[in-house]
């Protein structure tokens, strides 16, 4: 008991009497166009218990699904403590979306500027001309790739003057210093072409006359134009890919966030626990593990830490307490799949309690039980929940479990 009182303090929930814990406002849930719940209004105050009675099959489960986020409502709202059970757009979401966008943008840009040739230009060529691998050199080569400057490469003992991406060989020299000199002259010509027609450097040595057969033709007009355009082209590709990727990443992550806003995890984190009619325990886990995993999640729910500290001994103690309270102590270490239907339902209720919820939704606890078992379940619920925990129980009729509740609500008027 002390455990639960502590959590109330830690959650800091000061409940004013005029705001009910759970308030359902004009809720409509449809299935295939047929309304299962039509404009339902329901307020549940803290610490009270409500039985929802309906002889039909679908409506009660649909209501509980709509409360805990498993099913989306077509209109209306569900509020816990006056707050909607929906994830807000927090700073964390914003940074996450932005980070994803930038990352996708960078990946797209890397693909667009040809990461393979970038690697060739930045890493391999530095080794070829034997430059020390300092950050300054690294940055210089990176810049020279994006400026589409000419570079020197080596093949079979010859020094080649190549374009930045290494695709085009402009000249071949035997001597490195000679190659360097020629490269600088060529680069000057290309830079001059880029800056515009006003600047004319002395490139008579380079731009040869095609009619003179003895002179080597190094850079003709079209090559010069192409090389001068290279810088603009690579910049355009990089930036446009980055912007496309940014939009793609931001859009995708916003879509994912939007889809996950009204999910059961959000409701569970707010403190809504539910059990199912078909018990939906974890069949290949023992009873003990079934409850332990829920207890741990309950602790994670209340902790705001990124990596919450879990006191294992406390968890185990709480698990044992819960197992004892629903009378499954003899079956602690048998698999949930081996339990009888009644025991499975008890386990379901224990799992609901294990989350240490603010409101517990129990779906048809009396379904398929004989009278004795119904009374036993009613006793359990009375013992562990009543007066402390807010309870919503659904039922097909006025069975003993429904009778322990403070009030009853009939879904359909007939």
């Amino acid at each position: 008991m002390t455990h639960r009182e502590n959590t109330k303090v830690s959650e800091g929930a000061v409940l004013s009497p005029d705001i009910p814990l759970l308030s359902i406002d004009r809720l409509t849930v449809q299935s295939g166009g047929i309304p299962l719940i039509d404009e339902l209004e329901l307020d549940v105050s803290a610490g009270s218990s409500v039985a929802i009675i309906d002889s039909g099959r679908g409506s009660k489960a649909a209501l509980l699904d709509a409360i805990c986020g498993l099913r989306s409502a077509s209109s209306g709202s569900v509020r816990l403590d006056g707050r909607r059970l929906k994830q807000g757009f927090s700073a964390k979401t914003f940074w996450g979306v932005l980070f994803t966008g930038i990352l996708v943008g960078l990946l797209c840009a890397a693909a667009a500027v040809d990461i393979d040739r970038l690697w060739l230009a930045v890493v391999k060529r530095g080794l070829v001309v034997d430059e020390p691998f300092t950050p300054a050199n690294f940055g210089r080569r990176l810049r020279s790739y994006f400026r589409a400057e000419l570079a020197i490469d080596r093949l079979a003992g010859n020094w080649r003057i190549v374009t930045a991406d290494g695709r085009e060989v402009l000249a071949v020299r035997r001597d490195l210093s000679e190659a360097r000199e020629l490269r600088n002259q060529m680069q000057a010509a290309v830079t001059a072409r880029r800056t515009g027609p006003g600047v004319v450097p002395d490139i008579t040595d380079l731009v040869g006359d095609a009619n003179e057969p003895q002179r080597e033709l190094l850079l003709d007009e079209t090559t010069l134009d192409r090389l001068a355009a290279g810088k603009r082209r690579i910049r355009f590709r990089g930036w446009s890919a980055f912007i496309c990727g940014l939009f793609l990443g931001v859009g995708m992550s916003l879509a994912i966030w939007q889809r996950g806003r009204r999910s059961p995890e959000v409701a569970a984190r707010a403190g809504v626990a539910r059990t199912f009619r078909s018990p939906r325990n974890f069949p290949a886990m023992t009873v003990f593990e079934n409850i332990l995993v829920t207890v741990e999640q309950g602790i994670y729910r209340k902790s705001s830490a990124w990596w919450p500290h879990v006191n294992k001994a406390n968890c185990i103690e709480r698990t044992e307490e819960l197992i004892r309270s629903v009378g499954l102590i003899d079956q602690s270490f048998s698999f949930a799949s081996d339990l009888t239907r009644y025991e499975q339902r008890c386990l379901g209720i224990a799992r609901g309690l294990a989350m240490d919820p603010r409101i517990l939704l129990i779906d048809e606890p009396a379904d398929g039980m004989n009278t004795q078992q119904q009374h036993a379940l009613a006793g359990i619920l009375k013992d562990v929940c009543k007066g402390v925990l807010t309870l919503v129980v659904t039922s097909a009729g006025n069975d003993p479990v429904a009778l322990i509740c403070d009030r009853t609500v009939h879904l359909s008027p007939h």
Partner: protein
Amino acid sequence: MKIQWPSLSHFVKWSKKNWEIPVFTMLALAPWFYPALAGGLGGQMTSVLIICIAALGLNVMVGFTGFLHLGIASFFGLGGLFLAILTVPMNPLEIGFLPAVFVSVGLTAAIGTLLGSPTLRLRGEYLAIVTLGFGEVVRVLFLNLENVTGGTQGLGPIPPPGSGIFVTGIDLGREFVVDSRWFYYLSLIALFVVVLLVRVLEKSALGRAWIAVREEPLAAATIGISATKVRLSAFTIAAAIAGLAGCLSVASIGTTGDPNAFGFNRSVAILCAVIIGGLGSIPGTLVGVTILFGFDIVVIPSVDSWMQRIQGQVFDVSLFTLGSWRLALVGIALIVVMRFRPIGLIPSRRFAAEFQESKQ
């Protein structure tokens, strides 16, 4: 007072629970009793141990969270590639082996997270297709990014671990090349660490959340387990473990080799080994890999060389090799296991319970 010696049945019971201790002790002592491990056999055993590590990574994903993962070999290859990029003398980084392993495992895990975060919301078969596609993308990237990855030849030579470190005048790197027991022990230690890690994870809160999501995703969601986050953690851990295996693999071979080795075939072979051994079971995974890959890597070459000798004496030509029937034999083994023991050779406790439930 009479001392009561533990009987054999006690030992059997104890070793069933703590099977790692006898198994790893035996493997660690094996080189003393079997000197052939210093030669070619040691290299073959090392590659089996390395595949065991990758299979344990896959087991985290397939066994614990129940998601089909068809691209484990691509993470294996990525880990190896990062190690190669960081260490080969062609590249300027040339950092030591151990930091390179840490960095490449981290990078592989990051790539796993990147791939997983948008795709793990998909249901079962769709995720399998995503991982399948990713595996092919990685293989094709390896082939096409020739300047980074070395294309079909691969990156190499990767300096052996400990090269440049001298212990009492002996170069450790040279020892690693000469004597394959060094790599054998390195992989054995890595495998042991990974086994312990997976075991701890299985018994942790995260491990229970994995199982919960596998068993009843709906119920897991209503107790606040975010299925996507939980699966993402498993996917990342699987990627990291496979990346570690890839690092060890390329370091022991000395080159990343042909990228086609990191394709779909390798992924499916590892998956088969996990299924034969028993999904979600650590000893099962090890047994499955030992049977499938041990047969492939260790048994077949030795049997073939023996048969060639015999046939050469009798017929002067070699008529039959087991190697050409390798895949058929593996297929038959898979069919037989699936027919007579569908939960695997050493099933995990949980899967046995689940299987029984589905039978009822």
